[in-house]
Structure formats: structure tokens, C-alpha cells
């Protein structure tokens, strides 16, 4: 880890206009959580429903997409990444330093608000807060790493990320059962289902994969994506204005 790179990344992430964007999404989530509590008299079933269908399926992937791509994409696009690459620092260190900042930001702007939303909307013995908080924390790590890697590989990272999160996980996943098994969303929901036991089925907290399968797939995907990003950065071609 290189503290200077981490500081520069944090600064460019939080300094740009996109910072407003990813502060807006958790803000909306908390407002929705408040109205859910008001509308349902703090019924845990309604809370689970709101977290499942709004927080986990929309807010989390979008926040991670904006942060993961924003931590490196703009610098590659405008060429200013050269200032980091032209230093006697291994490219793996550069990639990991940026990734750590991105994941931490995603935890703060994605996972923490989701846990809060669970507590605000109405919970039963902190079960949903803990279940979806854990799930969202794992999601922040996995989604952000995948989208970060996407940004290292392609300039169309935001579009590809949107297609993955909304189309693949959302639409296709709704019709084709096999696709659900290959979705980060299902893997991170596995521990939520476990934590919400024995009320999981009453509240509708469910995942298509088992706990160990989910955890293993999360770890493999995250490590693989991070390694690919580091590897790609070693041979990335930076050409000036041409």
C-alpha cells in the first residue's frame, strides 16, 4: 500500500462531482427507509422487502459502480495516470492502493447506509440490520473490485457495469434461474439468509446459493478481479494526446 496514492485517490474520488452522486443514493435510501417505517409501523417484513428490492438490487451496485470505476477510470481516460505509473512503485501496489480506497469508500457509502436503513425501517432484534449489513459489506468488496477491474480494462466500464448490474442480475436473473447462481447479488445474500434464520423465509430473505458456495465464490471473484487489475496495469499502454 502506498499512502500517497491512497490520498490522491481519495481526493479525486471525493473531490469530483460524482461524490454528490454517491452521497445522493444513500441519502435517498435513508429517506425510503424512514417512509417504510412510517408506512408499515416498523414491520420487519416490509423492511426486508425494501432492503431486498431497493437497497441490495439498486443502491449497492450503483454506488459500487460509481466508486469502483471512479477510483481509476477518469485518470486512465485523461492520461494523468502517467504521474503515478512513472514512479519506481510496483504496479500491483498502485492497483491495490487505489482499490483499498475504493472499497473503503464503498463500505462507507454503500454498506453502512444499508445497515442503517435496516435499523431505521424497523427490525427485530437487529437481525435484518446485521443480515443485510453483512451482505452489503461483502457486496461492497466484491462489486467494487469487479467494477474497478472493468475500468482498468475498458473505457466503457460504466456502461458494461450497468448492463451487468441491472440487466444480467436484475432482468435476466428474474427469468433464467441459472443466471441467478452466477450473480454477485445471490452470493452476498447467502450469509444474509443464514443470519436471518429462523425468520429468513417469513421475511423473504433468500439466496439461490448455499452459504459456503456463496462465500467461496465471493473470495474467488474478488481475488481474481484484483489480480487481473494489477496485471493489466503492468502492461497498460499510455499514449499521450494521439
Amino acid at each position: 500500500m502506498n499512502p500517497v496514492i491512497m490520498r490522491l485517490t481519495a481526493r479525486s474520488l471525493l473531490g469530483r462531482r460524482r461524490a454528490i452522486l454517491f452521497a445522493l443514493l444513500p441519502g435517498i435510501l435513508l429517506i425510503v427507509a424512514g417512509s417504510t417505517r412510517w408506512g408499515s409501523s416498523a414491520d420487519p417484513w416490509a423492511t426486508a422487502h425494501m432492503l431486498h428490492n431497493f437497497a441490495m438490487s439498486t443502491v449497492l451496485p450503483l454506488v459500487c459502480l460509481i466508486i469502483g470505476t471512479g477510483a481509476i477510470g477518469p485518470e486512465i481516460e485523461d492520461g494523468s495516470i502517467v504521474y503515478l505509473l512513472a514512479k519506481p512503485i510496483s504496479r500491483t501496489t498502485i492497483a491495490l492502493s487505489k482499490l483499498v480506497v475504493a472499497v473503503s469508500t464503498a463500505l462507507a457509502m454503500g454498506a453502512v447506509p444499508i445497515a442503517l436503513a435496516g435499523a431505521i425501517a424497523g427490525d427485530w432484534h437487529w437481525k435484518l440490520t446485521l443480515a443485510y449489513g453483512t451482505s452489503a459489506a461483502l457486496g461492497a468488496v466484491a462489486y467494487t473490485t469487479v467494477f474497478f477491474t472493468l475500468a482498468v480494462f475498458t473505457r466503457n466500464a460504466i456502461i458494461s457495469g450497468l448492463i451487468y448490474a441491472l440487466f444480467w442480475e436484475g432482468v435476466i436473473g428474474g427469468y433464467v434461474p441459472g443466471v441467478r447462481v452466477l450473480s454477485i447479488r445471490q452470493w452476498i445474500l447467502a450469509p444474509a439468509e443464514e443470519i436471518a434464520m429462523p425468520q429468513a423465509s417469513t421475511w423473504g430473505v433468500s439466496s439461490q446459493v448455499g452459504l459456503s458456495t456463496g462465500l467461496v465464490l465471493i473470495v474467488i471473484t474478488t481475488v481474481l478481479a484484483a489480480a487481473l487489475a494489477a496485471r493489466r496495469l503492468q502492461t497498460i499502454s499510455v499514449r499521450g494526446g494521439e
Partner: protein
Amino acid sequence: MSTITLTDVSRWFGNVVAANDVTMEIGPGITGLLGPNGAGKTTLISMMGGFLAPSAGTVLLDGASTWRNPEIYRTIGIVPETEAAYDMMTGWQFVLANALLHELEYPEAAANAAIDAVDMAAAQDRTIGTYSKGMKQRIKMATSLVHQPQILLLDEPFNGMDPRQRLHLMDLLRSLAADGRTILFSSHILEEVEVVADTIEVMVAGRHAASGNFRKIRRLMTERPHRYTVRSSDNRALAAAIIAEGSANAVSLAADRIDVEASDFGAFVHALPRLSHKSKIRLLDVTPADESLESVFSYLVAR
């Protein structure tokens, strides 16, 4: 003292050949990489700086490959062509961050020295976003000088500079070269290169077209057949006078003009008004037919 050696280097992007079998050695002193836009200058500098793999051939810095070798950045300083920097930081913060990334022992002192070298101390506390193009160029320069590199690579450094800044940068490059450093800069303007460079490497359409000091390059560029189109009140008489005078080696008479080919550029342009005056022929139009930089360069390649 450091040297960059390119041996049989080619680089292609799909079907486009950006560098074609280039062999050159960049040693201590100032080297100008001259060529029209699209000649492959940026491609060459990117390969020297380790940002692009050669498709064929080798690019070595003191014997070590520059590709996938971050250690070269202890020796190399790079001033990228890109205008983008970290716009929300001040000049001082940006240069200091670069010093810290180099893990220098005294980063503040190094940042101060680099900012002084480019004469930016007065504006160092303003954010980079508020800088003019020339100021940005100088702060970029400071980031690449912060670790006192043995080799400095600059891609089109004079772009966007006013004449005073240009002179200042030239002085800076000269003083760096006087310390025994190796400096390479690219440009598409011969006049810019010849004032400051000890050696000039000419690139045209991806090929290494010529190499030498400015006298040699200047001679190659001026002592070539120059073509002119001349219109006058009496084309036939003027054509006869030009041929008789001797500074042109071919004159052809077209419907309403004369096409002249002169091998000695200076002699012909001096002779023409004298001839016109003496024979009382009014010159209506004198146009150099192929004075664009591209045509000058393509002559060098065809040679």
C-alpha cells in the same frame, strides 16, 4: 550519464505502423526529436518511457529494458503531452505528491527546488485548474524534475508556451544538459529544435529519416530542389532570364505561369526580384509549391 538505445524498434497498432525499424541512441546532451504530427514521435517517447511495448526490437536504458520495469523511473523523468493533471490540487501539493511518490529523503526541499527551477514559486499555491497552458506545462516539468533524473523525456514541451516561457524552458534544458543529463524532446518545428538541440533525430511517417546536428539537418532541408510557381507580365521573357541567370535548374512554361525548380533556395529568391527589375517584367505572383513541413520531410525520406 545515461543512454537510451533503440535497436530495430517497430511498433504497430493493428494495420497502422507508428514506428518502422528505428535504430537510434540518445546520449547525454539535448536531442530534438523532429517530425510532422503523426510521424511517430509520441510512440517512440512512450516506448522509451516504458508506457508502450515495442512490437519488435528492443528499447534499453543503460542496458536494461524499459518495458515492465518501474525501476527505470529513478533515472527517467517524463513530461507527458497530456494536459490533464490533478486539477483540484495546488501546484505545490502536486509537485510534493510526486516527490513523495519517488520516496525522496527530503520531499519538501526537492519540491521547492523543482518549482524554483521552473519559476513557478509565485503561483504554487493556486490550484492547477486555474493555470494557463504555459503554467501547466511548467508545473508538469517540475513534477518530472523533482527526483533530479539523469534522463528527461519531454513530449512537445513548447506547445502553448509564449516566447518568454519558451526561452526560459530552453535555458532550463541547457542548464540540465550542462550537468551531463540526457534530454530528449519532441517538436514539429525545426526552428525550435535547432536553437537548443545538440543532435536532431528526424522522424517521418514512422521512419527514422535523418540524424545529425542542426547544420546537417538544415542543409538537408534547404539544399533540395525547391519548386515555385511564378506569374508575371511576360512569362516567356522571364523564363528566359531565369535560365540565363543560372540559379534555377529547370524552368517550364505553362499556359499562364512558369514552374521553376531551383536547387539553391537562397540564390533563386534573391535573383528573382533583380531579374524582374532589370528586364522590366512585373511579377504578379510567386508561390512556393511545396513548402509545407510534410513535403520537406517526405523529401528526406524519399532520398
